[in-house]
């Protein structure tokens, strides 16, 4: 990529940082240059976030209709997969899968629920009754 072709589009990096990119200068030599962003990347990131929003809404609806426990919702909200949540709570993945079922979730004692609350960064109350 030539230095003159380096995109300087607006991105979420504004006011945080700019990225170093290696580009060819006028003399055909590589040098490091700063870029504020590239729309192609920003669009990829935005479409990923759009998908996350959709997943959160789906999980919220599953909770409201009584088909899933709040764990499903908070996992989507906090972008967590089973490995991440298992790491933070100490539960096994199969246990977490089970706890996604409202019946199984409702049988959990506060000690176990607190582990989930801590992992999601919410209070016990917020865990039991998410406010949307």
């Amino acid at each position, binding site marked *: *990529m030539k230095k003159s072709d380096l995109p300087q589009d607006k991105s*979420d*990096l504004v006011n*945080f*940082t*700019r*990225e*170093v*990119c*290696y*580009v*060819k200068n006028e003399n055909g*030599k*590589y040098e*490091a240059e*700063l870029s504020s962003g*590239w*729309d*192609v*990347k920003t*669009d*990829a*990131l935005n*479409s*990923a*976030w759009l*998908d996350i929003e959709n*997943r959160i809404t789906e999980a919220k609806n599953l909770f409201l209709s009584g088909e899933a426990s709040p764990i499903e919702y908070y996992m989507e909200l906090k*972008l*967590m*997969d089973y*490995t*991440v949540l*298992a*790491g*933070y709570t100490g539960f096994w993945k199969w246990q977490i899968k089970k706890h996604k079922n409202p019946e199984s979730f409702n049988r959990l004692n506060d000690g176990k629920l607190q582990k989930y609350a801590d992992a999601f960064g919410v209070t016990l109350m917020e865990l039991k009754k998410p406010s949307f």
Partner: protein
Amino acid sequence: MESFKHIQTAHCENGVTVSLLKHNGVKFMTEPLAFGLGSGLFYIHIPFMKVNNGPAISFRTMPGAIFKRTCKSLDIKVERKKFKSKTEAQSFLNEKLNEGIPVGCQVGVFHLNYFPKAYRFHFNAHNLIVFGQEDGKYLISDPVMETTTTLFPEELEKVRFAQGALAPKGQLYYPKSVGDISEDLLRNAIKKGIKRNCRDMLHIPGGIAGVKGINYTANKIRGWRDKLGERQAALHLGQIVRMQEEIGTGGGGFRFLYAAFLDEASEILGNDQLLKISDQMTKAGDLWRDSALQMSGIYKGRLNSQKDYEDSAALLNEISAVEKDAFIQLSKIVY
């Protein structure tokens, strides 16, 4: 002890390697050189694994390898430690800082609050340097940031003990002893770095790694639209672009970085062939950018026919061929 100097780089692990080595007297170290000595260029598409609900693809070698290999190739002894206990992890860090030793740390970015929110996923292979303490905070040199920043002890603990895939487990590392680095040692290190990178890009069996891995992804892309539906298929392409270009990862960026390394190598070794192959890596980088642009047409919804997916795949096949040719030429050089 000399005061620590923050250096911004394209990629975090390169950055930590460059900054720590420079601080320890290896003045000639640059980001492209660290990347090349560490044989950083790679491609792998791990089947049956999902990252953020998309394909698991990496454009660089495994986390930790660049620092390890670069140091080893220059006969630099390295200390690397993981911790079970958070308290121990902090007291060891404090001990090193009190001795005036800046330390590299592997961290997760989800709780890294000086990052823009949009970039904070559960990605655990980020690297930064802790270089001191002031007013109850740790002084942080994060290579992807333009300036230094700070973290409270509890914030640092949280990112050092992030959970999930590649959990850092408080891991820290630093060069322990640096000897005299002769020109000969450097020249051999460069040749070794190139040779290892040829092996990684050309000869890993199995078809998911190196230049073959790029074709593997191309084949997958051809089937995505039918198999996953338009929405998920488009998101998968978006993920490829994000892995390729996102802050601190690279992709097209890594190809340019490798081209820059070959330029430097050509000068140090006095070898013109390397310069030509550098041009070819630049071409590969440009093609990666073209493919990102083409894929963006799909995830923005402007393109959505099967033919558009075929076009994406064809571009990847072309990239694979260009990179294969470049590495075959590299492996044939007689210095």
